[in-house]
């Protein structure tokens, strides 16, 4: 019933007919693919396997190493710093995902309405997409540590630099993440909204449906595929947050805003915890995969209800 379909599988459009029934493809096709596969296996799959291998050792990143079985994995679950990093990453990712999608969808609907200067505004909203997170992150750091305290000295939290407050330093990180990620989400939602025929809304208003009802019964069901993909991918991306934190807090104050990626980076490169942090990364892969699959299942079941 929807114009747009979920976009998880390749389109089985017009298929090239095989030139010969059965048999092997012309050898040229194999030559086109296998070098790329070999390189991919070498630079992507091999490091994954090496990582998994070392996660069962006590390798510090240099010197000698021994097998220690699942010792790293056992220690991970007892490590307060690791648990705190998971807690922070999940909390951050949840808040940022919800805010990004709510704000992006609202702005996309505004852009889809008949407004003055639509193309100009669309262009403005997409600007953050081409700006490096790290660099604009430094600008946000100045904003939160210097400008806002001077502008709003009477608002308690803002007056004394949120970034140095362990309980609230996550707020500026969320603001930066949402500011940057919304650009792309707006464009996706906007292209979803443009597939909805105007006649549906006209018919709905004739039947007396108010704007909120129109949103619930027409807009949202018809862009649910876009909603699913945006939710899954933004959550997955935000769980791996890194650049934002480097620019704003570097994990501080203390380790209050340390994400998993940051912990792996710090421990693996400077903490002599190569094996330990690869074990952490292995767990992280499993967690992210499970979370994404659950999300897909839940959201697609919701899609099917319409």
């Amino acid at each position: 019933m929807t114009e747009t379909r979920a976009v998880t599988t390749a389109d089985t459009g017009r298929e090239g007919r095989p030139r010969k029934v059965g048999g092997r493809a012309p050898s040229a096709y194999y030559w086109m693919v296998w070098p790329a596969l070999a390189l991919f296996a070498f630079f992507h799959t091999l490091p994954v396997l090496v990582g998994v291998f070392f996660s069962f050792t006590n390798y510090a990143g240099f010197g000698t190493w021994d097998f220690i079985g699942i010792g790293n994995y056992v220690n991970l679950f007892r490590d307060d710093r690791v648990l705190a990093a998971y807690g922070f990453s999940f909390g951050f990712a949840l808040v940022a995902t919800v805010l990004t999608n709510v704000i992006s969808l609202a702005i996309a609907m505004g852009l889809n309405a008949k407004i003055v200067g639509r193309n100009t505004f669309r262009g403005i909203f997409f600007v953050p997409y081409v700006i490096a997170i790290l660099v604009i992150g430094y600008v946000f750091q100045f904003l939160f540590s210097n400008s806002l305290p001077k502008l709003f000295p009477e608002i308690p939290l803002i007056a004394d630099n949120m970034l140095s407050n362990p309980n609230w330093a996550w707020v500026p990180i969320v603001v930066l993440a949402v500011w940057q990620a919304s650009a792309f989400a707006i464009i996706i939602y906007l292209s979803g909204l443009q597939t909805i025929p105007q006649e549906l809304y006209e018919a709905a208003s004739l039947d007396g449906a108010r704007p909120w009802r129109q949103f619930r019964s027409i807009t949202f069901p018809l862009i649910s595929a876009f909603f699913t993909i945006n939710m899954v991918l933004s959550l997955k991306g935000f769980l791996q947050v890194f650049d934002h934190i480097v620019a704003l807090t570097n994990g501080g104050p203390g380790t209050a805003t340390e994400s998993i990626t940051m912990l792996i980076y710090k421990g693996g490169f400077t903490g002599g915890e190569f094996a330990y942090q690869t074990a952490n990364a292995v767990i992280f892969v499993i967690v992210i995969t499970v979370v994404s699959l659950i999300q897909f299942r839940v959201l697609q079941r919701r899609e099917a209800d319409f």
Partner: protein
Amino acid sequence: MTTVTNTAAQVTALAENEMPPGRKRRTREPSDDTRRINWWATALIAVCSLTVLIPLWLAVMVALKTPDQIASGTGFELPTTIRWENFADAWTRTNFPQALMNTALITVGAVVFTLLTNSIVAYAIARNMHRHFFTGAYFYLLAALFIPFPIIMLPLVKQTALLGIDNQVGMIILYTVFGLSLNVFIYTAYIRSIPIELEEAARVDGASTWRVFWSVIFPLLGPMNATVGILTCVWAWNDFILPLVILSDPADRTLQLAQYVFQGQYNTDYSVAFASYLMAMAPLLLVYVFAQRWVISGVTRGSIK
């Protein structure tokens, strides 16, 4: 893969179902929009768009001021006297020309190699989807989209250092190889919509598979080349974590890495730092301003059936 999954992977959502080449897709033009202008929405959108512009305004204002002006104000005021030396200082202190050249080299290299190689892989896969080897290859590449970058980060650094490619060349290779997952997905969907008869005609005339690709298919991939090119360009230019862990020699620094190092050295020298940030953003931002519609349509292409 952090960066890919952060932004580019969202295009997975878009890489579906293309129009066959040669037909222009018509988006809904405002001209056949009979609705009345919605002033409420216009006002709201205008206010919201300020949130995008405020940080940029702040960046420009701070970059033009003297340290005294920054210390005494909030950063948002217009500068009383403009200090252009901030840019000159940033130019020398961050070794801007070198960082710019490194970033440009890596980005251009990554885009060129990605367009030339990933499209070939996708073509072979798209035309042999009924063969196990090729479907296997397709899903193998696609599955990698779900593997976050931290797991390969530590071993990869060892590997590139061992091979002696912890430099710009290595970066180009990595962007080209890691891009395969998403780009093959984007290209394949599109190539399957190209009528096979075009190729058959060329084959009847005696063209080899390679010849068919370069003479028939590649010229038709224009729209997808634009999409893949833009995504790769933005990813490679703005990426931070990959250069951070891979590049070992300070002379190989990219723009983003240079900002990071500068920030570590002079973390309170805001005026020069902000001038430096502006110069790091400027190239891509300028391209975007001039080719804005083209960039947006390139990124969203394929999302509308």
